[in-house]
């Protein structure tokens, strides 16, 4: 599904990723852990083609995403849902409109949007909050909205960059359970996190990054 082959990324003289090689299979749930500045976010941003690696090859499906022309980037991003620590919700849109935006950019019809958004908001259990604006939501509701926005287009992969970073433990668990459920549908989840408790409780694959290098990759790993 995702294959990193000797991927490096330099920002000036700083090496953010150092010859990373990594294979993630379809339907896997992978935690990317490591201290701040280890390269977790860079790895995710390279996957969405926000950044180009300095060297190396990245295959998503059968496509080398380092070689795709700019005009094909939107198609790549439609296959990847992204969830952020700070939610990145738009202040002037309701919950329903935030989620609908994903389908609007994909050119879906109004009927299709209505149906899919309703279905997804019910799945993430915020259908009753659909007419509220981000300022009227709790942290957990905001993150659920962001997750709904990421998955409403039925992407193959969901990238979550510290999705529980701004949430209290109870709410964070709710979000993790939701991501776990999305994973059970067959969606690949790649989640960057610092949260030891979540990683250790979920017992999923853990890739540990340090100074841009993979120092450990274990199947039912722990974050020590």
């Amino acid at each position, binding site marked *: 599904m995702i294959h990193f082959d000797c991927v490096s990324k330099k920002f000036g003289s700083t090496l953010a990723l150092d010859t990373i090689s990594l294979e993630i299979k379809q339907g896997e749930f992978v935690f990317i852990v490591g201290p701040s500045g280890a390269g977790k976010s860079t790895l995710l941003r390279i996957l969405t083609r926000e950044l180009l690696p300095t060297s190396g090859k990245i295959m998503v499906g059968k496509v080398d995403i380092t070689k795709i022309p700019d005009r094909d980037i*939107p*198609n790549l991003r439609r296959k990847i849902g992204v969830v952020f620590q700070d939610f*990145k919700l*738009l202040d002037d849109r309701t919950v329903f409109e935030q989620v609908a*935006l*994903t389908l609007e*950019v994909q050119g879906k019809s109004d009927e299709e949007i209505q149906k899919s958004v309703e279905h997804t908001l019910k799945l993430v259990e915020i259908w009753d909050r659909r007419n509220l604006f981000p300022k009227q939501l709790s942290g957990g509701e905001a993150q659920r909205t962001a997750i709904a926005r990421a998955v409403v287009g039925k992407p193959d992969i969901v990238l979550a960059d510290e999705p529980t970073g701004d949430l209290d433990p109870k709410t964070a668990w709710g979000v993790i359970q939701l991501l776990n459920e999305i994973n059970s549908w067959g969606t690949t989840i790649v989640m960057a996190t610092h949260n030891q408790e979540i990683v250790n409780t979920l017992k999923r694959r853990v890739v540990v990054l340090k100074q841009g290098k993979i120092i450990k990759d274990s199947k039912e790993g722990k974050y020590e």
Partner: protein
Amino acid sequence: MSRTVEFTKRNLRRTPFQALAALMIMFLTFLALQIFVILAAGSQASLRYFENKPQVIAFFKEGTTSQDVSAIENALKQEIRVTNTKFVSKDMALQIYREKNKNDPTLLELVTANILPASLEISTQNPQDLQGIAEILKKEPVVSEVIVPEDVVATLTSVTRIIRVVGGATVGFLMVFATLVIIMIIGFKIRLKRNEIEIMRLLGASPSFIRNPFILEGLFYGIAGATLAWILSYGLLWYFTPFLQGYLGEIKLLPVNPLFMLALLGSSFIVALFVGGLGSFAAVRRYLKI
């Protein structure tokens, strides 16, 4: 396309003051443009009226006989430059005067046929020949005064030129100003919506999906400004038509031909698409990095 229109409407609704400012600038630009075009077209048509009616009018002294007039007419008919002559007797002059002032009984009461002189209207093929004919007529002892419209033509020519130059410069300046305002407002909106743009990019929006609502917004300002200006200029022209008709007299410019006004609207749309499109396109190129 419907999504682009929807996003454009949302852009307009959520920053109403900037939208209003851009619309008003466009409105003023097009109002100036259309007024200058109407003035230029009017002065050009007046000029054409005088140029196409090359005529010298010779007024006769009191006591001029019909033989005197016939002698002058016959002499002029020998001239190759002269195309037509028409004698206007005192009675005919009174009739014309009465027709022109039929709504003003005071003016009608004061004038009798004796006050008005008889005259001879001489038409030439070319306006350049008028002066030569006038010189011949001035030598006739029975002629009291000769009127040559050359002065009117010269004045109108210079007025038309001034309208074109001043109008062109003003409209040119306003168009540049309007384009810069569109760049500024669209650029401001792009900066204001940078989070939304970033999210749309990550959700897989194509560059055109992000760009088109901004371009359409610029075009909207142009088209809406041009339409509002056209409605106002047509309204003003329609309102002042009775007054202007009296002022213009025989020059049949009014009521203005609706086809001319439709052509003006059409040309305004073309300019609006150019100004609005150029402004928004420049702003998108400058500020929207996708």
